């Protein structure tokens, strides 16, 4: 029996291709980047990240994001990054250990590309993912910045944190693989590292500014936007720190893998210098100076503002928010047009203010102003902030000044709320939005830029009924009975009668007058 052996096919001559060390590292990085994308954790997390970004971009919002303050938007891009970073770290770690796991190390070590350059290639394989992150961050920020209502200034250094953290995670994954060449190293490092970081912050307290800023991401979300010069975030130094740290860890990984070239050593020194400079630059807290400056702006905002007169009223804002004055004027005018008596012609001063905060993650309330005719407006706008501001305007029109509003626990609430809500395009939706619990029945707090306005169940019912009636007829009645409606002595029943709302007796009377809950609010 004879075996038929296929003749080996005629094979073309060897292909001559160029050989360049640096280009080879880039080619390997590209190869590894493709492999990385096919890893389930990286794939899923980036899909979620991009999907979430697209969803935010294209889903019609509730108007809350129509007036972004860019100095807060830049930071908000950092909140989901730790999750991306975890996935990247683990998968790069596994990829860097692949040769070892499958026993190809011995073979690859005699190939032209030295192990340390393979290490560098593994770290560089994260660059496309950092680029995608940068793109997503840029699109998110660009979209916010292009909105007609955008205010303030973004910081490129804050935007750079996202891509830099992804890079840092990748480099850290490679370094862990080189230091602890066991596959269990990466995931356990994350758990132990997380616990260590957390402990460090618990032991030293969150007030340690320099320690806080050693974390890759210092998001500090929560407070309302404040003028850029009061942020006190050493963003540029922090970006330098991240960049230096990334380069330093990469150099360390390359050195551990046997790299000894002069360029590498020089880069290590430079990276060390950059990291040290970043830490030195971001560490001084300047808390006292910052708090003093914030206190000054909080107490005497007028010194830092410019004002413009629109119609009867004056609108004062910080320099970064001048674009919103027209929107405020539109709302204030509409509210004022509904008011009667002297209030309809009152000269108001709309004053933008920031609360006194000590750090950017704590939310603080604005104290009411005592100057008559002065209305507070915050540093956010759009969505429910519009009716909230209208409540503020209406309160001052009815009660005279903001401090007096906090003592309004009587039937004037009805007038205030109707003025504020009837001036909205969609009063019913605004009614729900302005109430703390989004309800349209029962007692609840109605939000305003300073102190909230407590509404009893009966007041809620009357306002709801009023909003159902044609605006022109209610407006006429409000203007006609303005003095009585804005008197603290007028009872709820009388207000209802003046405004043509049937008494609660013929409906389901569920606690007319003050219930126990709203009584408690009003005594505060």
């Amino acid at each position, binding site marked *: 029996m004879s075996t038929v052996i296929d003749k080996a096919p005629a094979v073309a001559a060897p292909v001559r291709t160029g050989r360049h060390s640096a280009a080879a590292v880039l080619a390997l990085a590209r190869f590894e980047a493709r492999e990385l994308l096919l890893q389930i*954790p990286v794939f899923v997390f980036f899909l979620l990240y991009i999907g979430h970004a697209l969803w935010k971009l294209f889903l019609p919002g509730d108007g809350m994001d129509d007036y972004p303050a860019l100095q807060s938007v830049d930071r908000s891009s950092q909140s989901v990054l730790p999750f991306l970073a975890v996935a990247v770290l683990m998968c790069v770690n596994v990829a860097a250990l692949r040769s070892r796991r499958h026993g190809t190390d011995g073979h690859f070590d005699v190939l032209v590309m030295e192990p340390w350059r393979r290490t560098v290639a593994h770290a560089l394989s994260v660059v496309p993912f950092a680029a995608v992150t940068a793109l997503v961050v840029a699109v998110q920020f660009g979209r916010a910045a292009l909105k007609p209502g955008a205010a303030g200034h973004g910081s490129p250094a804050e935007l750079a944190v996202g891509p830099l953290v992804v890079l840092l995670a990748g480099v850290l994954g490679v370094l862990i693989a080189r230091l602890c060449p066991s596959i*269990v190293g990466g995931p356990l490092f994350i758990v132990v590292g997380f616990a260590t970081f957390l402990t460090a912050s618990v032991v030293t307290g969150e007030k340690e500014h320099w320690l806080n800023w050693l974390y890759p991401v210092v998001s500090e979300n929560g407070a309302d936007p404040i003028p850029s010069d009061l942020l006190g975030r050493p963003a540029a130094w922090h970006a330098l720190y991240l960049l230096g740290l990334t380069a330093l860890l990469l150099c360390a990984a390359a050195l551990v893998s046997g790299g000894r070239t002069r360029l590498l050593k020089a880069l290590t020194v430079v990276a060390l210098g950059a990291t040290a400079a970043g830490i030195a630059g971001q560490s001084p807290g300047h808390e006292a100076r910052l708090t003093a400056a914030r206190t000054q702006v909080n107490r005497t905002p007028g010194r830092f503002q410019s004002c413009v007169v629109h119609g009867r009223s004056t609108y004062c804002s910080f320099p970064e928010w001048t674009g919103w004055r027209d929107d405020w004027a539109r709302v204030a005018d509409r509210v004022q047009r509904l008011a009667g008596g002297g209030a309809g012609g009152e000269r108001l001063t709309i004053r933008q203010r920031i609360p006194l905060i000590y750090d950017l993650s704590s939310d603080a309330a604005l104290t009411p102003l005592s100057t008559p005719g002065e209305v507070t407006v915050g540093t956010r706008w759009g969505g429910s902030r519009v009716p909230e501001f209208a409540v503020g305007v209406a309160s001052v029109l009815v009660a005279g000044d903001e401090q007096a509003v906090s003592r309004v626990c009587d039937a004037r609430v009805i007038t205030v709320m109707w003025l504020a809500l009837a001036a909205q395009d969609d009063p019913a939706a605004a009614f729900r939005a302005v109430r703390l619990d989004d309800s349209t029945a029962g007692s609840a707090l109605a939000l305003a830029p300073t102190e909230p306005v407590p509404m009893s169940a009966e007041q809620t019912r009357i306002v709801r009924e009023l909003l159902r009636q044609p605006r022109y007829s209610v407006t006429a009645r409000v203007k006609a009975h303005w003095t009585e409606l804005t008197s603290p002595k007028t009872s709820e029943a009388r207000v209802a009668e003046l405004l043509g709302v049937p008494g609660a007796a013929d409906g389901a009377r569920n606690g007319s007058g003050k219930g126990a809950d709203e009584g408690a609010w009003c005594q505060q």
Partner: protein
Amino acid sequence: MSAVADGCLRVPVLLPPVWRALPWRALGAAAGAGLAAAAVARLVPGGPDPAFALVLLRCAAVAFALGLAFLLDDPARHITAAVPTRRAVRTGLRMALAVPLAAVCWTVALLLIPGRTRPPAGDVTLEAAVLAALALTGAAAAVRCTDEPQPGAAVAVTSAAGTALALLLPERWALFVAAGSPDWAVAHQRWAALLALTVAAGTALLPEPLRRGPSLALRPPH
């Protein structure tokens, strides 16, 4: 009947070699990391606050689960696959040996947290049990669906990524809720349901299939 009796007789003989074949390095590293995370509580002057204690315990639970993801790693898998002792028996023995050890480690981790700040022990133990069960089920699934002798790395990375994903769950499906949160009880009902599902899936995955299943286009970390 005799086969079953035979199997039962074989178990004591199998125990020592299975014990030696356990992936001790991964298990030991995970146990060490988990206990270290819990021991951190003792370093905090004045003791940790309950929220911090809870996070530490969860770190420990994740570390233990990561170790268990390596439990079914068997470099000699292609040799041991063809022996008459069933896979379910071999895998079951590994679990029977490792689970008590994990339970001891977990108890130590719990005791490392000072009593007055310790979160409800039963509830966090439920969380730890689910994480461990998910890791073990993942390992069983990897053994069933792939030829890989050591799928632990992929399972561990996927488990860690899954845990990170669970942290991103929206509030109404949240699993990792804060200590003292009003959603604590509801979240732990979810944990209990997850445990039941995981154990059921894990049990179903234990026996060796007679036919090949579908394979994935995407791949776990390799």
